[in-house]
């Protein structure tokens, strides 16, 4: 963060303007933000943990999240497995790394399994939200003047966005999730369907301004097909803010899932998510505090990492800030 670093990078950039890709330039700014870099490291570790979780709890069962051992209930972290547990139910290395819960299930195995489920809820929900946002925003910005049933398309889509913004989001999610049969897919879809409005708005704004720029005019003059112009020339230029929003939204989705779990409408057992491990753990806050503090701190760290990375990306992508 010292001024000398600033000076050298700026000099470098001036000396070889074509030599550095925009991604490289982004990375240079991003890595100077220590908080964001820390968040990034956490996220990489998390991705590894989640993949390991998928692998070790489903394909090659090294840690079994589902096996119930009534002799080993509510054991603190790092305790040994008791002698009467049969060999096929013993945890790896005969140690409960993070203790056991009220049914004697291995908390570490459940956290492993839950990391993948929690993350996939976040990513799928955000994937849905961003797709809807980009498609609606893009149509609204690019084909805005066209008419559909005599109505201006831009107007139609944007008024619909306004309508969706009027709903109290969490209350709406809660209503729908409570009425629908509980399933992990319903939760993903509902969170996704209620989270696209901001994206649609700024993608529309982005497309409106891109449409007037010379390179798009040039592409049109060259007679490129419309879908090529939209997907290869305009969309990549509008994608940076979408990525930032997506990163922050994953964090929000994970929090929403844990809030739903708290109210009893989250992912149902036996599937573990960090949210429902935490919400089950709150009943044992005095007898087995690790059941509460481990998933709680895990969610805090991961959500914080997503938020910090998102903010770091926002700052690095902002040319105004970059020049300072």
């Amino acid at each position, binding site marked *: 963060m010292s001024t000398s670093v600033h000076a050298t990078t700026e000099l470098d950039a001036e000396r070889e303007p074509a030599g550095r890709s925009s991604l490289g330039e982004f990375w240079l700014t991003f890595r100077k933000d220590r*908080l964001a870099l820390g968040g990034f490291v956490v996220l990489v570790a998390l991705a590894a943990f989640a993949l390991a979780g998928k692998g070790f709890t489903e394909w090659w069962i090294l840690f079994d999240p589902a096996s119930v051992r009534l002799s080993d209930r509510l054991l603190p972290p790092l305790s040994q497995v008791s002698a009467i547990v049969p060999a096929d139910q013993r945890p790896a290395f005969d140690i409960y790394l993070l203790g056991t819960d009220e049914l004697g299930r291995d908390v570490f195995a459940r956290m492993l399994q839950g990391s993948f489920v929690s993350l996939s809820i976040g990513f799928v929900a955000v994937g849905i939200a961003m797709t809807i946002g980009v498609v609606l925003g893009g149509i609204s910005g690019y084909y805005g003047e066209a008419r559909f049933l005599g109505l201006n398309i831009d107007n139609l889509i944007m008024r619909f966005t306004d309508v969706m913004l*009027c709903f*109290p989001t969490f209350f*709406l999610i809660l209503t729908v999730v409570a009425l629908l049969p509980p399933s992990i897919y319903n939760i993903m879809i509902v969170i996704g369907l209620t989270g696209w409005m901001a994206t649609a708005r700024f993608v529309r704004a982005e497309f409106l301004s891109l449409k007037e720029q010379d390179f798009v005019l040039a592409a049109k003059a060259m007679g490129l097909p419309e879908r090529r112009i939209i997907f290869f020339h305009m969309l990549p230029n509008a994608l940076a803010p979408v990525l930032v929003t997506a990163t922050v939204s994953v964090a929000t989705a994970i929090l929403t899932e844990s809030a739903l779990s708290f109210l009893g409408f989250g992912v149902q057992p036996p599937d573990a998510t960090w949210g429902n491990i935490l919400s089950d753990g709150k009943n044992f806050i005095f007898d087995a505090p690790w059941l509460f503090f481990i998933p709680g701190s895990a969610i805090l760290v991961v959500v*914080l990492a997503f938020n910090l990375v998102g903010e770091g990306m926002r700052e690095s992508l902002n040319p105004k800030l970059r020049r300072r």
Partner: protein
Amino acid sequence: MGQFILKNLLQRLALLVVVSVIAHAVVHIAPGEPSEVDPTNPRMKPEDVAKIRAAFHLDEPLHRQYVYWMRDLVSGDLRSFKDGQPVLPKIWRRFLNSLPLFIAATLLIWTLSFPAGIHAAIRRGSAFDRASTFVAYALISIPGFFFAYLLILSVVNAFSVPVVGMRTFGMEDAPLAFRAMDRLWHLTLPAMISAFSGVALLSRYVRSQMIEVISNDYVRTARAKGLEEETVIYRHALRNALLPFVTMFGLMLPGLIGGSVIIEQIFAWPGIGRLGYEAILARDFPLILTINFFAAALTLAGTFLSDVLYAVVDPRVRLGA
């Protein structure tokens, strides 16, 4: 100006109608009816279910049901499916309970985030700035109920005061001062927890707004004139940085209903969010829809208020242009 306001109001009214139609459709089309709350009850024969459905107009087409709902809502004799009580007084009573929570949280948000944000902006890059940035993100990132439990544990351990509910049982005959103190203690934690994420977001916003204003030329001019730093910051810079926050006031209005389900559930606070949650559990359609309707109305009123206020405060904005 008048024409703008009128046009804007009409537009919002139309939006509100569309919102209510969609909400009505979503709630009714989603599976799960009031008659199915207790499907395992062996005493419920198909005739009984049919009777219940007929009593609540659930056997009629959707648009008719919408008209019934709207008619009853406007005439004020909309009744809850669950207990037959009129819906509007029910909501009003819970609203009065939620109001102190909302006011206390709003006061906390506005009084804490401005000093924090301004201070961080003036000493950009200082230890305070970096620490407050980190704390702000941590506060946004912590699951609300996890944090609430931590706070409840520490407050109950440290001060041994009861914090759950709106008041302590058996305090009704205590002198006024004790009762007031008791109410205040019960209000403190839920208000703090509702305020935390707001403080974090708003102080970040104040900071970035302030940084932008401070780098303006007129601030440099003020400094060059030899004004004291205090005057430059608080008399010249702050005034312009404050402008966008007028709009935030309106945007916080919907928090009155939407943002409090979890907190009211944790603290057993008989507020409007909890009423909505109970209504959802009981599939009490009139109550769910009416709460949702008011929440949407508050959102629209909030954005309307912020548009108008912005035009009033900032002479550069012209309405109806």
